[in-house]
């Protein structure tokens, strides 16, 4: 058993206008298999069938809760002609979905029935149980059973094939793999308003404190980023079955502008605001090389 260090959230933490994850975008080579896996097996709702705005002859698929709310949206670019991704540092190492605490057994049975290989369940930190698995193209996924699921009932897709009591409730976290954690941590903390909360071996946890959930417009959650410090690992190659970027959510264009100015002042290159129709986006590379985005909650899907 490795020692777990729990840190108190410092009083000095200041919310920067980020409430957690907005969406995660990954790469598929096979949209039909992708739809079957995420909609039929995991029970997410396909909430948008559209095209990649920068490459309109390819699909952009969006999955999420009933309404495709920020904090639940997993999207895929369909790029069939690029190589398969290779795992390593400087990439998103896992996307974690939130399930209720008593749903582990249901999901293990479901995975067995659907012939989906999985690892676990295993305990992570004090109060979460994790099942790890992969999508058909190798994307690293997890189900995290945690009591915070109680506050995420609005993030259930009631029309899906999984019974409501066990259904996925949006994202729990993302895990980044990095050669070192400090510079990524400083962006998460100083620019995005995360707080360092726990450490277990090479896993460093950062969270947006729950008291910052934004009221009616934002039910909170999807507020955890883990950084795995893996200095001796080869550089990842992004391809099919890799994450392309992680977007963090902000409630307004004004707050997005403030965040952008601060990110540029910190010496990072940020794009101008780009109109993605369903949200407005600013992209920048964090110091470890992973593409981050700041996306506005409005106008929505």
């Amino acid at each position, binding site marked *: 058993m490795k020692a777990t260090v729990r840190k108190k959230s410092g009083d000095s933490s200041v919310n920067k206008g980020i409430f957690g994850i907005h969406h995660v975008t990954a790469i598929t080579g096979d949209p039909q298999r992708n739809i079957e896996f995420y*909609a039929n097996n995991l029970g997410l709702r396909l909430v948008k069938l559209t095209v990649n705005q920068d490459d309109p002859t390819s699909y952009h698929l969006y999955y999420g809760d009933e309404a495709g709310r920020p904090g639940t949206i997993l999207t895929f670019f369909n790029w069939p002609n690029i190589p398969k991704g290779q795992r390593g540092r400087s990439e998103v190492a896992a996307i974690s979905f939130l399930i209720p605490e008593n749903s582990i057994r249901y999901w293990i049975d479901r995975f067995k029935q659907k012939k989906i290989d999985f690892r676990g369940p295993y305990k992570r930190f004090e109060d979460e149980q994790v099942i790890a698995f992969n999508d058909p193209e190798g994307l690293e996924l997890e189900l995290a059973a945690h009591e915070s699921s109680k506050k995420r009932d609005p993030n259930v897709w009631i029309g899906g094939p999984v019974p409501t009591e066990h259904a996925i409730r949006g994202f729990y976290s993302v895990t980044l793999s990095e050669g070192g954690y400090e510079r990524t941590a400083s962006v998460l903390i100083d620019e995005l308003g995360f707080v360092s909360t726990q450490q277990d071996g090479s896993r460093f946890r950062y969270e947006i404190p729950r008291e910052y959930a934004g009221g009616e417009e934002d039910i909170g959650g999807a507020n955890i980023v883990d950084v795995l410090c893996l200095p001796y690992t080869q550089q990842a190659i992004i391809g099919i079955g890799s994450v392309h970027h992680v977007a963090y959510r902000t409630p307004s264009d004004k707050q997005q502008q403030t965040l952008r100015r601060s990110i540029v002042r910190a010496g990072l290159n940020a794009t101008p605001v780009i109109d993605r129709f369903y949200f407005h986006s600013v992209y920048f590379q964090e110091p470890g090389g992973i593409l981050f985005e700041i996306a506005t909650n409005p106008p929505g899907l």
Partner: protein
Amino acid sequence: MIDEKLEELGTHLVLPPWLEPDRKYLEKVLPKVNLPFSSKTAKITEEKGIRE
């Protein structure tokens, strides 16, 4: 909801307004996909003739 009703989300190809002029071309070159079944959207997909 900006371009689809809640009950219709994900049931047909949507394009941002600036790509609408290219719809015919895009529908031709994009691979055909069968959309997922859902109890709420079943009626809509039946009407549109999509599988399930």
